[in-house]
């Protein structure tokens, strides 16, 4: 639990920090400081066990089936890193308290910082590789937020996104790599993976895993060719840079390599990939650092170079090289954090970080200058400072790589040494010379506690440099033992090893570096150079931007070509899918014995010719003559009804006929409110349009033929056993009705009917809701053009007047008389439904037609004055009735919608079958009536509203559907 709290407490602290008020700088700092101190105390208390070589584990079950548990595992390496993260974290918190200005929203800063700290601790303490990836990505996310802390600045946003994109890409690779590794080993548990080194290296997928994991580590540690993000991340506040980009996050990459060293290293691939990237980085970083003008830029490139150095050592991979790598990780963290903080102080005090302006600062900032010079010397590898020790170890390892014949590695090492001395001198130079007079601010020594972290770190540099064996020795030993285990070499931490080749190399580097700097400064005018010589062409950041730009414009291009927001292409694709049908059916019909062909009936054929003509003509007219098209489509519907009748399906025919009538009339009523479509003057059709239309035509015809083929295949297919026999047999005996279709609808599959009636009701409610907002087009609000002539009696009469006393009087009397008759007919069809063609659906439509006719005749106002139409009630009552009828079965302990037929003998009427399905059908009837009427009312009320439209509601015009 104690272990768990190490990770948990920073995240909780992060949440608390986010909730504090914006100006609570002190409270935030106390909170963050408290969290880190807690962590330090906990971690320090583990030292006795760690020093004894124990591995502490804490398992929480998480995803056991996938072999994923939440495992915290502390060995020496993890412990050292934990201490590093927490100790430097503490100093950074202290520093940040003074660095952040009162106008910065500090809760966000400390919240992100603590979250980052938790993530980083998660990375180092993970005992499970997948869990490590989780925290790894979390460090990417939190660092994204931290770099973009001043997100009103463009460079901060750009730098954050660049860093995030690169490290997140690496994170995805790492995730894949870990999965491959897990596949090879059969477990994600770190202990198991570390023990399976030989198996991993012998596996076919070794190279895949290695490359993917290396990509993750190298992007995180800003190694060539991914190093470009680090300098841009310097847009972050300096405490962030000194924490993330020197001591911790960038170290995560090398930490991972050290962590997995037992499992992955020891092959030429390892050395070439890791070492190769390291060497390139080391030289490029060191060289580029010399030519920076920004203090933080110089430090960033120097960090890249030092990380390269560590990577090279890991790439070399011998036990001694690993010792040097771990040692240098610690040393670099110490001096680089202090240098960043010093740079921050300078920036804070002078208002600039430009080394072309800064000079002579030792006069104004004597203490800071001294500290920075010592740290800078450590960076350059001056003897008696910690940087010297690990650099010398590096030199001696570099010598061993090529043995006696091949000196390239040693040459690279010395070159790097020379460069690093040169850039360190460049850094130190700002403290010397005459005091600058053109600084934005007059510098003063910073507050006592702002300098304190720097002092402490510089002191550490000195102590480690002078008495390494006593100071850092035990700690390093713990980490080394945990990493190397049995292969831990003998090594000797001392500033003086006698006169040997590494010392010579150090001397060459120091002397050469000074000379190189002087030459550059005096002959090449260092201050005037705006770019790094030789390597400026390989601008990673530029390449990144270009890639991103290309990616975005490529995506837009792709979407323009592959995407569409128009309906027509979408339908085209769906119809094309139909074209595949005949291919699937190829060869089918030959396998069946064709059913005997019946004689062709010329009359029936003629009916169908008419139907086809109607359909094609309807499509033809659809564009400019809606009324004609609608009538023609109605014709097709009638033909369909006739066909049903012809083929002895009276129920279907009746339903089709009624549906056709009602929908056509409703659509006609709707057409009234659409704006007229101006016919295009087709002078000359461009060939493009012609092609386009031909294509559509061809696809349409082919799609139709495909459907015809499909239908034909089904029709000649010999009948198979279907469930329909069951229905035919049981309709009367168990369903209580001799009309199978109706029994099917209200009994066998009444649930489908319930669903479909619901669909109807939803349609009605939607139409109603939509039309409430609909405002007709201005040109269709007045009297229709057909009635516009003053001779037409309709032009100066309301619809009611026309029907009651006008030219429609005769028709009006007849049509009103129709209402009771149609009502009776509806009842008749409803009653006989169970045994003969009819039923609730048809009856509902018939009744609706009766009402519809009244609306058409005398207008909405008159009808509603004389008849209370309550479509909502009909509709809701119908649905509720249908459902409750179904529920009634529960009373008799039967499932929903079970029917029961009561046989009663009534005087006068005789024997009666009273199936409960009858009540269900009544619900259907009511819902159908309600649906039709609701749509009708919604349409009809347009006429009521349209007359008051132009003046009041013109601004609403934009809401009109187009």
């Amino acid at each position: 639990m104690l272990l768990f709290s190490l990770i948990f407490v920073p995240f909780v602290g992060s949440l608390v920090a986010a909730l504090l008020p914006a100006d609570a700088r002190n409270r935030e700092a106390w909170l963050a400081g408290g969290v880190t101190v807690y962590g330090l105390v906990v971690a320090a208390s583990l030292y006795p066990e760690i020093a004894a070589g124990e591995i502490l584990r804490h398992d929480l079950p998480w995803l056991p089936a996938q072999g994923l548990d939440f495992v915290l595992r502390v060995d020496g390496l993890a412990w050292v890193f934990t201490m590093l993260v927490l100790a430097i974290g503490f100093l950074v918190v202290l520093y940040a308290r003074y660095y952040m200005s009162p106008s910065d929203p500090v809760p966000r800063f400390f919240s992100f910082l603590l979250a980052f700290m938790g993530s980083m601790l998660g990375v180092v303490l993970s005992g499970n590789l997948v869990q490590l990836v989780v925290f790894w990505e979390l460090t990417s996310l939190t660092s994204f937020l931290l770099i973009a802390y001043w997100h009103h600045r463009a460079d901060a946003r750009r730098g954050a996104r660049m860093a995030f994109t690169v490290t997140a890409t690496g994170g995805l690779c790492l995730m894949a790599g870990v999965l491959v590794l897990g596949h090879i080993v059969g477990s994600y548990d770190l202990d198991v993976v570390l023990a399976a080194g030989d198996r991993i290296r012998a596996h076919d997928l070794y190279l895949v895993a290695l490359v993917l994991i290396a990509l993750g580590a190298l992007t995180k540690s800003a190694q060539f060719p991914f190093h470009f993000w680090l300098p841009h991340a310097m847009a972050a506040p300096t405490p962030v840079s000194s924490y993330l980009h020197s001591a911790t996050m960038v170290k995560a990459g090398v930490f991972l390599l050290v962590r997995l060293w037992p499992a992955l290293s020891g092959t030429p691939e390892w050395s070439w990939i890791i070492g190769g990237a390291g060497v390139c980085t080391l030289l490029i970083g060191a060289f580029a650092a010399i030519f920076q003008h920004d203090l933080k830029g110089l430090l960033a490139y120097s960090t890249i170079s030092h990380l390269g150095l560590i990577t090279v050592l890991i790439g070399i991979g011998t036990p001694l090289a690993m010792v040097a790598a771990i040692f240098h990780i610690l040393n670099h963290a110490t001096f680089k954090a202090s240098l960043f903080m010093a740079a921050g102080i300078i920036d804070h005090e002078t208002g600039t970080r430009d080394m072309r302006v800064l000079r002579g600062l030792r006069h104004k900032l004597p203490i800071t200058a001294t500290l920075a010079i010592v740290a800078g010397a450590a960076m350059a590898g001056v003897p008696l400072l910690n940087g010297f020790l690990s650099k010398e170890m590096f030199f001696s390892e570099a010598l061993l790589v090529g043995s006696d014949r091949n000196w390239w590695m040693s040459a690279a090492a010395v070159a790097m040494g020379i460069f690093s001395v040169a850039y360190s001198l460049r850094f130190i130079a700002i403290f010397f010379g005459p005091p600058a007079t053109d600084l934005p601010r007059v510098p003063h020594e910073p507050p006592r506690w702002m300098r304190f972290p720097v002092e402490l770190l510089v002191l550490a540099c000195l102590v480690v440099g002078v008495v390494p064996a006593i100071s850092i020795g035990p700690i390093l030993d713990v980490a080394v033992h945990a990493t190397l285990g049995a292969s831990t070499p003998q090594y000797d931490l001392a500033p003086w090893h006698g006169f040997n080749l590494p010392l010579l190399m150090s001397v060459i580097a120091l002397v050469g570096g000074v000379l190189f700097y002087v030459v550059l400064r005096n002959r090449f005018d260092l201050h005037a150079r705006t770019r790094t010589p030789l390597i400026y062409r390989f601008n990673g950041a530029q390449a990144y931007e270009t890639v991103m730009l290309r990616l975005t414009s490529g995506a837009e291009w792709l979407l323009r070509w592959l995407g569409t927001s128009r309906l027509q292409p979408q339908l085209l694709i769906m119809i094309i899918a139909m074209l595949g049908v005949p291919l699937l059916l190829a060869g089918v019909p030959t396998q069946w014995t064709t059913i005997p062909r019946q004689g062709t009936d010329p009359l029936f054929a003629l009916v169908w010719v008419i139907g086809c003509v109607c359909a094609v003509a309807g499509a033809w007219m659809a564009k400019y003559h809606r009324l004609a098209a609608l009538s023609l489509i109605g014709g097709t519907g009638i033909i369909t009804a006739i066909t049903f009748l012809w083929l002895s399906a009276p129920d279907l025919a009746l339903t089709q006929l009624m549906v056709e009538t009602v929908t056509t009339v409703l659509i006609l009523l709707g057409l009234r409110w659409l704006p007229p479509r101006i016919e295009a003057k087709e002078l000359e059709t461009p060939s493009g349009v012609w092609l386009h239309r031909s294509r559509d035509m061809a696809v349409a015809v082919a799609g139709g033929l495909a459907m015809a083929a499909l239908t034909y295949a089904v029709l000649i297919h010999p009948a198979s056993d279907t469930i329909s026999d069951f229905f035919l047999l049981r309709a009367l005996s168990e369903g209580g009705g001799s009309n199978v279709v109706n029994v099917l609808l209200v009994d066998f599959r009444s649930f489908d009917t319930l669903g479909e009636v619901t669909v109807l009701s939803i349609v009605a409610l939607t139409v109603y809701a939509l039309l409430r907002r609909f405002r007709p087009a201005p040109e269709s609000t007045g009297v229709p053009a057909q009635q516009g002539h003053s001779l037409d009696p309709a032009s100066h009469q309301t619809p009611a007047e026309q029907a009651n006393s006008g030219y429609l009087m005769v028709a009006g009397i007849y049509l009103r008389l129709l209402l009771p008759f149609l009502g009776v007919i509806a009842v008749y069809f409803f009653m006989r439904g169970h045994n003969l063609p009819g039923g609730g659906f048809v009856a509902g439509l018939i009744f609706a037609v009766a009402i519809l006719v009244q609306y058409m005749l005398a207008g909405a106002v008159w009808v509603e004055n004389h008849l209370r139409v309550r479509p909502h009630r009909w509709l809701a009552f119908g649905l509720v009735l249908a459902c409750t009828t179904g529920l009634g079965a529960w009373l008799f302990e039967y499932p929903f919608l079970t029917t029961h037929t009561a046989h009663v003998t009534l005087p006068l009427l005789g024997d009666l079958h009273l199936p409960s399905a009858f009540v269900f059908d009544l619900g259907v009837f009511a819902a159908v009536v309600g649906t039709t009427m609701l749509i009708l009312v919604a349409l009809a009320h347009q006429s009521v509203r349209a007359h008051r439209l132009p003046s009041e509601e013109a601004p609403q015009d934009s809401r009109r559907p187009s």
Partner: protein
Amino acid sequence: MNHWLILPILLPALVAPLIALTMRYDIVLARIFSLASAAALLALALILTGIAHDGTVTSYLLGNWAAPFGIVLVLDRLSALMLLLTAVLAVVVLLYSIGGWDKRGRHFHSLYQFQLMGINGAFLTGDFFNLFVFFEVLLIASYGLMVHGGGRDCVRAGVQYVIVNLVGSSVFLIAVGLIYSVVGTLNMADLAVKVADVPPGDRALLVTGALLLLLVFAIKAALVPVQFWLPGTYANAPGPVAALFAVMTKVGAYSIIRMYTLAFGDGAGDLAWLAGPWLMPAALVTLLLGMVGVLASRALGQMASFAVIGSMGTLLVAVSLFTPMAMSAALYYLLHSTLAAASMFLIIDLVSERRTGFGGNIEVAPRFAQMGFLACVFFLAAIAMTGMPPLSGFIGKLLILDGVRDADWAYVIWAVILLGSLLAIVGFARAGSTVFWKSRSMEGALKSSRRPVVLSFVAVGMLLSGTVFLTVFAGPVTAYLDKTALQIFTPSVYVEAVLGHVWDK
């Protein structure tokens, strides 16, 4: 006697007309009833999950007609899971809508309940004609919800949506007809039994029907090349409706899983696993196209819509392998992506409402109210959408990568999924940076006419905590999903429960 199965359909079917009838003019009452109904659905879903938990498959014979003659509802782990997901989403989205969206048009709560009825019905039915009916219910209700509130773009996109899906419905009918003409049944379990015995001469017809059906489900699931309707629809629908729609694409995915494991699984002889070869390439292209769309989008709503397409691709890649391991991963991803997408749509709605005059466009605009909080939740939702840790998207992606490891195309799938994630990460980072960060550099602030409603923030918080829940309790959740996947691949249990069952009172 066990009537639980019908209730998730019956309850909204009764509440919806009641609201339309008696509470048309009383928004408060309508809200109370609607919310009570949604909460009751959640309770029901929990009960049903409890029933299905031990692996029993329960069937319910409607009208007491024995299968395959009557319609049957079937509850197994998969349908219980989907019901639960729907109910959770329904409650949260309803809470959000009560914040004001429901007043902007007529009949919101009725349509909402009808929508739930349709979705629940689709998840419960064991009859594929009845599935068609519920597809209609949910389609029409969703159209009603989508054009709720109106506006030119909304209605225009709605027309597209409804026409594309109506064409899909016609194809559905054709496919049902074809399958019926060959096997003579409408019951899924019965179909599963009969498919193996179809004579070779009839197979072509059956395959045609099955593939047309796949096309229909693909339309619902927004799979390439029939995904075009989705961006316009989701981006133009009211925010909460778009959030609810996050589960609608899953209806398509569910139908694919159900149909092609039950009827065209191992028991189908030569026709076994016929969906896979079509599904896999389509899903891979869908994934990439969706994520490319994320990168190319110029508005937040559009971006989230494309992310939904991408997530459907990811989901169906895993489904298309038709192995228990990949299926379990797919189901986890299904849960995650629904919650993530819903939260994203709600957040985008909150943002767009506050950016008066700028809406959801990915462009610099002056500051707006609650910007910091919204930036924070957008960041979290984006983490979820892109599958970054620590939210459940990461686990979902991991499980899928792990689950497809043994597939023939494993390398391609891995590469596509990882590339897709990267594109999404870049896209969301860019959008968030522009909308929330770059806008900070502008002077002035936007005044919004709408008051902030606590409920909306609560809803967003609930969805995001849902993804946290999925992460923390990944172990138990995946254990349930593993069992679900196993059940999916043991269709005999399902068939036995449906056909071997005679109602006994």
